[in-house]
């Protein structure tokens, strides 16, 4: 059985619930706790682990060893950081909006956690199995913007306000290519239900056939990244997700060389830790929805289920860290121009490409559709991308550059 791990987990949940079978109210409470508590705890743990991973990875990229003092390989560093954050003084600016300054971290944390709840972590491991989970996810993740604005505005600091406004502008702009690239997937899966989207990414005639080889490949080859429109969509999605999660190279709201720490400037101590955690968990949530939409969710060759989801999530995050270690920060006008003049038209074009692929698949079968999709569809996207980048170049770049000081 392939989904052994997930089924055991679900069974464990049922077993715990069975203790409270005679008390319906208590059973409901226990059910809710079982749905939410492990999720919250595991994602907080994942956050702690990721801070370690990020520091370590960035350090290695920059030829440093990274944290290695606390615990083995510095693995206990996040705990030390947490204790430090807890013990720090909580500073609230004198003229700040006290209530909103207090509410902003909570407001960032809540949507991040709800967003995580919409992810199908495994077969049957789905905290909020709504019928329109994916659109709900995007709706909830747009609440981040409000929290960031709240943090920026309530601090009554010009850098905070600038960071907050930058964050809002950026998140609103990149939400459009994000959702548009997801639309292609939703269109092809024919459902907004996250479980059905995952199920659509396996070759249904092969999975469950009993043949080991078919079982093995049936759960891999159906992933949306392996389809032309899915591959392009994944790239657009990933770029937009980086911006949406305020990650480098789109970390303008927190650009420390320009505006100190943006909306985080006036936060200290535990509120800062919570804001930071909220940001990471919303990044997790977006990476998770990326895994669900494009990387086959919890599908995997053997032991399909939770382990595969976790593996994919962390590898996606590792790529984010890798990008952070490589690319420099964008300028504000470049950032907005990139969203509106480049990603947005390409994401729309990608929806047409998906439709074209679907039509071919219905007419002549998968093989022809794949071939034509990769050859023509992808070529069309590439051409459009080149044309757009030519169009968007400023005239000074297009003409030969003249350097005044260099002979």
């Amino acid at each position, binding site marked *: 059985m392939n989904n052994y791990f997930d089924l055991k987990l679900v069974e464990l949940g049922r077993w715990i619930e069975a203790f409270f079978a005679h008390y319906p109210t208590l059973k409901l409470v226990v059910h809710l706790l079982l749905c939410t508590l492990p999720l919250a705890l595991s994602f907080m743990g994942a956050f702690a682990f990721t801070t370690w991973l990020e520091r370590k990875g960035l350090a290695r*990229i*920059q*030829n440093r*060893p990274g944290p290695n003092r606390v615990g083995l390989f510095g693995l206990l560093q996040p705990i030390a950081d947490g204790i430090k954050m807890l013990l720090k003084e909580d500073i609230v600016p004198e003229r700040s909006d006290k209530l909103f300054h207090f509410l902003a971290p909570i407001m960032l944390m809540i949507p991040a956690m709800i967003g995580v709840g919409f992810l199908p972590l495994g077969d049957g491991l789905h905290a909020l199995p709504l019928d329109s989970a994916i659109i709900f996810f995007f709706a909830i993740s747009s609440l981040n913007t409000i929290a960031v604005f709240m943090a920026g505005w309530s601090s009554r600091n010009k850098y905070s306000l600038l960071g907050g406004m930058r964050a809002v502008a950026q998140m609103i702009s990149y939400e459009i290519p994000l959702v548009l690239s997801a639309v292609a997937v939703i269109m092809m899966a024919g459902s907004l239900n996250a479980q059905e989207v995952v199920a659509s990414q396996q070759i249904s005639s092969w999975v469950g056939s009993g043949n080991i080889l078919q079982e093995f490949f049936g759960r891999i080859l159906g992933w949306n990244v392996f389809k032309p429109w899915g591959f392009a969509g994944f790239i657009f999605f990933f770029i937009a997700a980086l911006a949406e999660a305020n990650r480098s190279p789109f970390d303008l709201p927190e650009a420390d060389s320009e505006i100190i720490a943006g909306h985080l400037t006036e936060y200290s101590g535990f509120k800062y830790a919570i804001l930071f955690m909220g940001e990471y968990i919303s990044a997790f949530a977006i990476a998770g929805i990326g895994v669900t939409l494009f990387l086959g969710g919890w599908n995997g060759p053997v032991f399909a289920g939770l382990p595969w989801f976790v593996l994919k999530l962390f590898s996606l995050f590792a790529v984010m860290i890798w990008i952070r270690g*490589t690319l420099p920060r964008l300028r504000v006008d470049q950032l907005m121009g990139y969203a509106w003049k480049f990603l947005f038209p390409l994401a729309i074009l990608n929806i047409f490409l998906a439709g074209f692929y679907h039509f071919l698949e219905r007419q002549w079968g998968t093989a022809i559709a794949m071939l034509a999709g990769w050859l023509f569809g992808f070529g069309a996207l590439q051409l459009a991308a080149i044309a757009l*980048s030519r169009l968007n170049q400023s005239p000074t770049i297009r003409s030969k550059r003249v350097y005044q000081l260099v002979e």
Partner: protein
Amino acid sequence: MSLIGKGILKGMGVTAKNFFQSYYRKERLPTVEYPEEKATINQFSRNFPFLLYDGDDPVDGMRCTACTLCERACPPQCIYIIKDKDENGKAILSPRIFDIDTSVCMSCQLCVEVCPYEAIRMDSAFELSNENRFEGLLLNREELLKPNAYYHEIHPLEARETDDRMAAKAALAEAKKKARQKRARLAAKNKPPPGLKKTPPTRKKPPQREKSE
């Protein structure tokens, strides 16, 4: 046809190479993990000044003559000197108090440049952290005085040069002294009118250092 994002991929390749090679190539991970192993200090490194003495006894062999040139040259004014006096209240050529506030010192080395007696030099010790934030970094005479051997240990080349210079100076002074004595003897023989050649020997001393540089 240029591929979109080729530059990004190239950059990612560079960082990936950095990442993986840092695990098995020494030159990719040059970090010295400090408390366990210490970086080898370059002999030209400098941190804060210290005072030199010759011989075994720090106070007797002290080269400093409390001329306060360094005190006046110090831009952040972190040197504080009080001249010593003997029991008759007459000034003697050594400092009673010589303090350097290393929390103020900016390691400019101007005191070293200005010192005519090669008495003050830059130290390369760097583990100076201290629990007392008021007096801990204010070094007094006893803490500042270090033997010439120590100087040879930390800055061998420079110390040798200094020693040579001092030896040359001493030899020159000796030669002059001899010449003066000879002249004195000759003068005693010839009995010239007194009070004619009095100043030259004392005036000659300061420019000599400039020449040696």
